[in-house]
């Protein structure tokens, strides 16, 4: 029997997850925009961000704010190092070699994390009350609402940065045409470094929010698998497209978990977004808001 309250609950719950997905997806999109690089390790970066935050919280003994700040510094450092030591020597590499690099770095991160973080806590203590907030009869986890709100604020800030600030404008010029960007005086390497610094911050923020919202951050590396349908649906280089796709996938997963999984025996929610992805690509090969590569000759 259809229960409207259950439906609304699923939609709201899915949308809250979608906000955090969107943040992870944006960490992917900023890199793709700046350098056409497909970062297959975006899940691992996020995982590392959350482990850094958890570890910093444990070692420093500061509150969540201090832990996040320390983790951001560490991840920015790591991202800049990755850019300088791994990517920059490969200047103008092929698409395939970049993909292989990201996969390799992802595997390395996973392996190294189990060694480096051995014995350290995975969980980031949630600063929010554990009792769910009951809105109109729907029990909503305060963690999830707070995580979604913070993610939404971060996305708004990022959107402003790209469209309202001079540096964001320059980054979009780099994304649009590197030759032209150089010709108007933009230092490409400086802006690639900036992009990776941004990835460092986003991975800490997204990783922490995911960890808090999902109650422990189990399977956070797999977040990468959730992000691919989102970025492809969104059109790879469109910020609004990515945000829309993230909410679509979040809600879709939630609805499938609620309605279909009990029927088919569970687990279908992980596949559902890929089914929608294939269906969408048949109709719009460049995603919701991506643009086909057609130019005036």
């Amino acid at each position, binding site marked *: 029997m259809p229960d409207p309250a259950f439906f609304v609950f699923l939609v709201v719950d899915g949308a809250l997850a979608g906000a955090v997905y969107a943040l992870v997806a944006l960490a992917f999109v900023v890199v793709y925009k700046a350098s056409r690089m497909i970062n297959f390790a975006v899940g691992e970066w996020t995982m590392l961000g959350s482990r850094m935050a958890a570890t910093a919280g444990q070692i420093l003994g500061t509150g969540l704010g201090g832990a996040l700040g320390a983790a951001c510094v560490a991840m920015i450092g790591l991202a800049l190092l990755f850019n300088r030591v791994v990517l920059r020597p490969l200047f103008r590499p092929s698409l395939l070699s970049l993909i292989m690099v990201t996969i390799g770095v992802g595997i390395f991160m996973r392996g190294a994390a189990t060694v480096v973080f051995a014995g350290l806590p995975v969980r980031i203590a949630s600063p929010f009350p554990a009792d769910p907030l009951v809105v109109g009869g729907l029990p909503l986890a305060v963690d999830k609402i707070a995580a979604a709100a913070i993610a939404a604020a971060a996305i708004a800030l990022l959107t402003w940065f790209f469209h309202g600030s*001079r540096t964001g*404008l320059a980054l*979009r010029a780099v994304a649009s*045409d590197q030759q032209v960007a*150089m*010709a108007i*005086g933009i*230092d490409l390497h400086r802006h690639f470094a900036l992009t990776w610094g941004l990835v460092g911050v986003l991975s800490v923020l997204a990783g922490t929010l995911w960890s808090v919202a999902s109650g422990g951050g189990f399977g956070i590396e797999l977040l990468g698998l959730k992000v691919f349908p989102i970025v492809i649906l969104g059109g790879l280089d469109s910020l609004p497209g990515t945000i829309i796709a993230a909410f679509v996938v979040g809600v879709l997963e939630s609805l499938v978990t609620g309605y279909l999984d009990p029927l088919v025996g569970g687990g279908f929610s992980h596949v559902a977004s890929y089914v929608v992805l294939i269906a969408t690509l048949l109709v719009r090969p460049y995603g919701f808001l991506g643009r086909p590569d057609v*130019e005036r000759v």
Partner: protein
Amino acid sequence: MGGLGGPPKLPDARRRPGQAGAPLDFPPPPPALLEIRDLHVSYGRIRALQGVSLTVPQAGIVALIGANGAGKSTLLRAVSGVVRARQGSVSLLGEDLVGLPIHQIARRRVIHVPEGRGMLARMTVLENLRLGGLAARGRREAAADLERVFALFPMLYARRRQLAGSLSGGEQQMLAIGRAMMARPRLLMLDEPSLGLAPLLVREIFRIIPQLANEGTAILLVEQNARMALQCAAHAYVLQTGLVVLSGAAADLLAAPEVQRAYLGAG
């Protein structure tokens, strides 16, 4: 060491060697803005420039004419750092530009408007213009420059929210020149600004180029349309298979029989 009551003396630098002692009534010519010496550029085995020397003074228009493949565009690319010179020097007020990264040369306000115009097609007209001024300086000057560009090209103001890629060829050329102006160029290098434009737009472009020069921008103009280029330039160079074969005052070249025969279509 002239005392207080002695006659005024000019510093030695202001005397001409031939007129020792006599004070000058005009200062010596200022140093050249751009001094290209013996420039060689190759694309693989093809030698595009084989020892070109050229001077652009601090103000005015210098035209570079020649047939297709003579090396005109290569020269501009070598100055802006897009291609690397194999030999020779390109000095901007005494500083060698060879080997500097492209963005560093642009930051010295040497601005190249390439053939094909180099638009950021998926960004708006306004964003393209703002980006043009990004490297040069602060916000306030940028706002004033934007007004100047819009005054010169009212069409750009009308279309400021459109994507640059949606403009027509002539409009893109105006945008390219407008974006270059935003950088307040010391040297503006225009590659075939009239290429592919309707005659009316060509006239419009050639009305604006001297106007920019009058405002104090030095311009190095590459053109297939030799007549119009020579008419607005002060000096000109004729390039043939990577070498300068003729140079001099543009008016003299315009009258020279070999130029008329080869480039101006006269019998």
